[in-house]
């Protein structure tokens, strides 16, 4: 065992190649298999929305905090901020400086925020006053502070962070309006009021990455495979929230980074990547995340979220 570990450290490419020629990967998966996703919804009782997502040895915990802010005259939508912390527990491969680590995690966080802003209905975060006609601006809206912490990192940080943030937002329950809470509190003995609203999603997004190594495509690469890849393609697939099992998923975002000296990436290869990463593994991920929303969509809770 120690000899194999030493060989891996000294000759990482040869180590990986010896597996790949047999169409198998060091962790026992096939080249096109994704790692199982496990979602633990609402592990934090103190946060209105939280989730832990585990993909292989990559684990990300996300919590959502709520805040209210005054909308400007022109603003009609709520706000979403995302923060990612890859602390010492999550840093396994990055031997750069602290500033470089921050730059990388900030870039991942920015991409996650962009996808989330497109996937949820920010307009539904506006609070409407009782009996008030819909006004173009003014009033208050919810600000969602989404904080993710990477607990362990073994590749695909963006995929796991996005899945974790989506799961946490799916478990989010808004408190009812304060005056309503007051009425309910008189008849109840504390605790969370019943019938809390859920967040309205437009898309359910899930990302699957593909690494290119010597012409072979490795779906959902580990940290070791990512470090040796000459190109990595990350595709964010989205399924419309109102038809979770129906239509084909669409591409919400595509990110490709390639080392031009080592990889030969053309449109044909991108087509192959879209084909292999849009398979069963992505469907499972989308289904796992969509299942967190199904109750809300069926029960119509989302529609009544902001009503007084």
């Amino acid at each position: 065992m120690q000899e194999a570990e030493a060989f891996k450290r000294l000759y990482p490419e040869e180590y990986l190649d010896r597996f790949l020629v047999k169409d198998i990967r060091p962790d026992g998966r096939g080249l096109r298999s994704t790692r199982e996703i496990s979602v633990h919804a609402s592990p934090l009782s103190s946060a209105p929305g939280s989730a832990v997502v585990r993909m292989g040895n990559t684990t990300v915990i996300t919590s959502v905090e709520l805040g209210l802010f005054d909308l400007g005259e022109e603003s009609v939508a709520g706000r979403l901020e995302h923060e990612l912390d890859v602390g010492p527990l999550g840093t396994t491969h990055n031997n750069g400086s602290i500033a470089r680590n921050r730059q990388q995690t900030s870039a991942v966080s920015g991409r996650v925020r962009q996808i989330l802003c497109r996937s949820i209905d920010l307009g539904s975060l506006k609070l409407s006053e009782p009996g008030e006609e819909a006004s173009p601006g003014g009033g208050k809206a919810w600000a969602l502070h989404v904080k993710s912490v990477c607990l362990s990192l073994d590749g695909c940080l963006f995929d796991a962070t996005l899945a974790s943030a989506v799961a946490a937002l799916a478990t989010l329950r808004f408190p009812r309006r304060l005056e309503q809470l007051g009425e309910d509190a008189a008849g109840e003995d504390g605790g969370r009021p019943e019938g809390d609203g859920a967040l309205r999603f437009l898309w359910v997004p899930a990302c699957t990455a593909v690494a290119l190594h010597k012409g072979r495509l490795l779906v959902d690469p580990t940290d070791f495979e990512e470090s040796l890849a000459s190109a990595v393609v990350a595709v964010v697939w989205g399924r419309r929230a109102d038809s979770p099992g129906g239509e084909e998923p669409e591409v919400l975002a595509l990110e490709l980074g390639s080392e031009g000296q080592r990889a030969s990436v053309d449109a044909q290869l991108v087509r192959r990547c879209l084909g292999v990463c849009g398979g069963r593994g992505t469907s499972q991920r989308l289904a796992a995340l969509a299942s967190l929303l199904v109750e809300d969509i069926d029960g119509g809770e989302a529609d009544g979220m902001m009503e007084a």
Partner: protein
Amino acid sequence: MVDGGRGDGREDLELRSSRYELGVTGVGNGKVEGSVRLTSGRTEVAVEVKGPEASLASVVVKPTANRDRVSVNVKSVVSPVSGQSGEREQALEESIIKFVAGVLDPSCPPRTTITVVAQILSEDGSLLACLLNATALALMEAGIPLYGTPVSVAVAVAHSEPSPPRLCLDPDLAEERTSQLVGTYSYLFSSVDSSESAIEEMKANIVHVSTLGNSNAQTALHALTVAEKAARLVLRTRAC
């Protein structure tokens, strides 16, 4: 986006007029090896490149067993038009770092550092493509060996249901806001011959793609093909 035409009167597959000026930082401390000011429509950026210089002892360049792999540390700083750098600028810095690492030639001195400093002077869409083009020109001016000639273009896909999607090259800010999908594509053309016929036959190697917006897989691939044609056009224009 106006039906049947674009706000500034361009055709769908027409780029904005672009010009660049090399060696804009002639004064200073003499540490800048390459600098360029690039204007594309009303988007304008200035990029400086410093290096390759010996890495500081504290900067660890990742060791690799692959001899073909470039082990150069790339740093990037992007400053906005006004205010302080935020999340968006950090994302741009990350894109520039990956882009530079992807286009460097293996003959680039190992265990060195290349620093790219970009200043956004004016912003009107296709910012990342403009920054990557300016970075490529500054790298070339600095004499840093590249594996080929990099060209970046931006493509927007307009809302067009139920008709087929409408692709627009080099979108401005207003077009980006109303588009269904906006993507930046960087190609690396590798050949020593830059004659017009040779450009058509050059192999285009994709080094960077970032898209945001929903589309089916077919439209995403179509945008990629259009971007490659546009990149060849840019290359041909530069060769002339």
